[in-house]
């Protein structure tokens, strides 16, 4: 179990909070908790989805990041215009490694940046004309695009441009879908609202497009929802589903297309991987089209097997047998991976701070390797995420919501984990502190981590990072005292 007892962890939280002014301390106190598995309702002990305190270093993004960066961006055959000044689109361009198949600039546009590049005059006189012109130009230059989405940046909402009108007009001219998304960055407290807005845009502008048209379905049609194909994640998930006999007709939205999304109302079951960003659309489809949905977890063999069985339970015996076949097929490979890496990683402790689904989903994968997650937290989770997390985490472990840069550093100094998993903004701080670090947003330019194939890569990467010889070289040789071991992990 965790090295710190419940009392020690509680004391640690109080100690870290001491530096804040009275008001800030009261606010931050609500976002930090010591896990207690007996709690049913996270709400009583942790507050989430609240505005970050001014002045602290938060790691959150904005609504535009949630819509353009997460939900819409990976749809490869559409062009996503970052409508507004150039920076938002340019600095987030291609950073998320949503892999896709296609020829960029011809029929796919995933890593390109399209922007209306707002200038002062556009703010003063409005940017609708410019937007219409941009879209006409796009049609001329990239005729193979299958549609356009307009991702609003902050100024659009502030000056009140009517992008819906422009979208409708252009859609009528080109005959392709043009989707206006009101995801101005100032909306909401984090990227989470951006996900919601993006889901609502899909609901209103995409799903109805194929209603009532013929579709040749099978009883085994499913959609993979909320897998963004980071480093190829969706591909390593998809092959498992197909091997067990299901037909994946849509991927949302990693390596996905607009046609796939339009077809989704015809599936028999929606499979939700990232609950946080895509549960809204799943709920909508459940209500409108009576499509059930389940959450699944493809991190680590234990959870993969569990999920495959849970998915198969929604289908007939053929699929159930298929699931068992797939699990049995990969068992030997998994045993080999675990036999190789578990002795090297056994007992190592991990602290996570990520977004979406990973703070709870990857716990199983670490446990498969004999590692222990001693702290976890969401950038933009809501109450229902924490409800689910409490059960997955060990007792007396730390849970932190929207943790600030300062708090996270102090926690790591005291808890002394063997590995920290977070994003690029935290990476170099911890590496310079001498703590092994993996980026758990983009898999540190590695991946995929989903599915059985992904687990082999995951295990290798964790071993590579934790057992890297560089961590014993953190101190200059001439400063080395008799006990280099003790220094190794010290902050």
């Amino acid at each position, binding site marked *: 179990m965790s090295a710190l007892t419940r009392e020690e962890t509680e004391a640690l939280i109080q100690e870290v909070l001491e530096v804040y002014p009275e008001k800030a301390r009261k606010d931050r106190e609500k976002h930090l908790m010591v896990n207690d598995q007996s709690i049913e*309702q996270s*709400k009583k002990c942790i507050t989430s989805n609240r505005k970050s305190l001014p002045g602290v270093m938060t790691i959150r993004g904005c609504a535009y990041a949630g819509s353009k960066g997460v939900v819409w961006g990976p749809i490869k055959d559409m062009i996503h215009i970052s409508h507004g000044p150039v920076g938002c689109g340019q600095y987030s361009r291609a950073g998320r490694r949503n892999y896709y198949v296609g020829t960029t600039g011809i029929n796919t546009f995933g890593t390109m940046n399209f922007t209306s590049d707002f200038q002062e005059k556009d703010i003063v006189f409005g940017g609708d004309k410019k937007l219409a012109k941009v879209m006409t130009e796009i049609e001329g230059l990239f005729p193979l695009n299958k549609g356009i989405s307009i991702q609003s940046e902050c100024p659009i909402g502030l000056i009140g441009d009517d992008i819906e009108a422009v979208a409708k007009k252009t859609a009528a001219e080109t005959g392709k879908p043009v989707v206006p998304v009101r995801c101005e960055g100032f909306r909401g407290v984090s990227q*989470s609202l951006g996900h*919601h807005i993006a889901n609502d845009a899909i609901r209103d502008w995409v799903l109805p497009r194929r209603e009532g048209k013929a579709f040749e379905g099978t009883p085994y049609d499913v959609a993979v929802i909320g897998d963004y194909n980071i480093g190829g994640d969706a591909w390593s998930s998809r092959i498992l589903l197909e091997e067990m006999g299901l037909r994946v007709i849509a991927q949302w939205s990693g390596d996905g297309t607009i046609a796939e999304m339009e077809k989704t109302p015809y599936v028999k079951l929606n499979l939700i991987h990232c609950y946080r960003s895509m549960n809204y659309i799943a*709920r909508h489809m*459940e*209500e409108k089209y009576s499509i059930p949905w389940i959450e699944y977890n493809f991190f680590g063999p234990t959870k993969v097997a569990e999920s495959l069985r849970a998915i198969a339970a929604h289908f007939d015996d053929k699929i159930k047998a298929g699931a068992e076949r797939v699990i049995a097929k990969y068992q030997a490979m998994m045993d080999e991976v675990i036999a190789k890496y578990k002795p090297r990683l056994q007992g190592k402790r991990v602290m996570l701070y990520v977004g979406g689904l990973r703070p709870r989903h990857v716990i199983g994968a670490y446990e498969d390797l004999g590692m222990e997650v001693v702290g976890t937290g969401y950038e933009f989770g*809501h*109450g*229902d995420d924490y409800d689910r997390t409490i059960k997955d985490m060990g007792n007396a472990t730390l849970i932190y919501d929207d943790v600030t840069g300062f708090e996270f550093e102090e926690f790591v100094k005291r808890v002394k984990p063997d590995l920290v998993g977070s994003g690029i903004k935290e990476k170099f701080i911890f590496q310079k502190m001498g703590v092994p670090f993996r980026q758990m947003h983009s898999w540190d330019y590695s991946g995929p981590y989903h599915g059985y194939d992904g687990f082999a890569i995951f295990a290798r990467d964790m071993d590579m990072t934790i057992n890297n010889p560089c961590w014993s070289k953190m101190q200059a040789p001439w400063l080395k005292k008799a006990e280099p071991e003790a220094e190794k992990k010290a902050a």
Partner: protein
Amino acid sequence: MANIMIQRGSKGDYVFYLPKRDLEDAIVSMEFDTPEKWGGEIKLNNGGSYYIEPQIAPAKLPISLRARRLDAAE
């Protein structure tokens, strides 16, 4: 008035969902729960309560409804 969604949970119970605040919670009690009369005051697990106009029980769940907040938990 707020738009809410009521659906069936995994154990056959009702689950309340308020999209605007992304609040998901179990319904502990519903004033009327018969096929002819359904709705009324609903109490949530977090202590909040809402009121939906009593109506004929919906043919299928989930269903989106308008609800009035009687007592919020937070």
